[in-house]
């Protein structure tokens, strides 16, 4: 007797991330400037991603398991 498809057998299941949770954290310390096109520090136009305290991308492993680059959407 064959077992179920091997890909289904190997699925890593996890709770969906709430995208708003990340944004709330970022919004507390930074503002998104639509005209500049990046999150910046509340004072000046320096990008948040350049702030050592900013919890930006630290790994290819995104906070969501989307195959790296949010291909899903």
């Amino acid at each position, binding site marked *: 007797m*064959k*077992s*179920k*498809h*091997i*890909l*289904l*057998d*190997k*699925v*890593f*299941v*996890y*709770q*969906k991330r709430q*995208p708003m949770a*990340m*944004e709330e954290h970022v919004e507390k310390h930074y503002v*998104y400037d*639509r*005209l*500049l*096109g*990046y*999150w910046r520090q509340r004072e000046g*136009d320096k*990008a*948040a*991603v*350049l702030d050592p305290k900013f919890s*930006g*991308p*630290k*790994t*290819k*492993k*995104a906070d*969501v*398991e*989307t*195959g*790296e*680059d*949010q*291909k*899903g*959407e």
Partner: protein
Amino acid sequence: MNRIEVLIISNKRDFSTDYVAYALHELNVPYLRIDRDELLNYSIRFLPESEELHIELNGERFYTSSEILKSVYYRAPTFIRTLGTPTGPEEQIHKFQWASFIRNLIVFENSLWINHPVHTYQAENKLYQLKVARQCGFKIPRTEVSNDSAISNIRKDERYAIKTLDPGLLHIGDQEGFIYTNIVSGIELLRSDLRLSPVVIQELLDPKVDIRVTVVRDKAWAIKILKHGEGITGDWRTTKRDELEYVSVSLPEDVIRSCVNLVKGLKLIFGAIDLAIYNHEYYFLEINPTGEWGWLVNTVNFNIHEEIADSLSEGKGR
């Protein structure tokens, strides 16, 4: 009225795009970022005859045209994999008509695209990647794709790396699932009913060291991915984040040349390439035309964003 020479298509939560936007700002290049998750904030008007695009955002007016627009930084999917159905007619109209408008920006064919969605669409196909990688001189692991173990050359006493053809993202009720590369035995494969879908079955490279090469035009940056100073068996993405080490590494000239040629061969400008060192040889695993790279600026100080911004500011004329 603000002239736009560089158009960025992204979303508000894409911090890698922030690096590029900031670098363009520092270069004093006139750019505009369109966030696909904030489209209600933009007023647009496109004139097909003159190929002019007018945009209003936060009370500011912007314009560009085929003559003016040097480049497009395209951080948006080409395959739509969302399984969820939009809730109502309004959401469906909003989502699908805007998506089409964004796709239609390919009318700006004189501009440099990083990357062009048509080429990304082609390059995302893993079997096509393997073909072009071989043409560029890469060794690839012995590979077959099958939905029937009875007709495939699987040996019960061997171990294999199995992976999906398309990113294995699943919606399972309120949860999500992801299928990484898995190591399985031949017996497991022979016992599995594969009829439901083809699966990529590859020679297992073990022990190996994973290498990530990021290419922008002729430039390449590479890191080794380690755990406690050693290569990682199987899919390194399953390793706990704080156990991962990213170490900048110099690659042999011929490997760099193959990486650059692969990106060119796929008609891309940017590519994130996964290689593995196995038995002292470099093997090609896959390339991601929309791969993530912001983490490399953060962790190993690669100036990838500056190279992307320079390319965008120069356009096709470089």
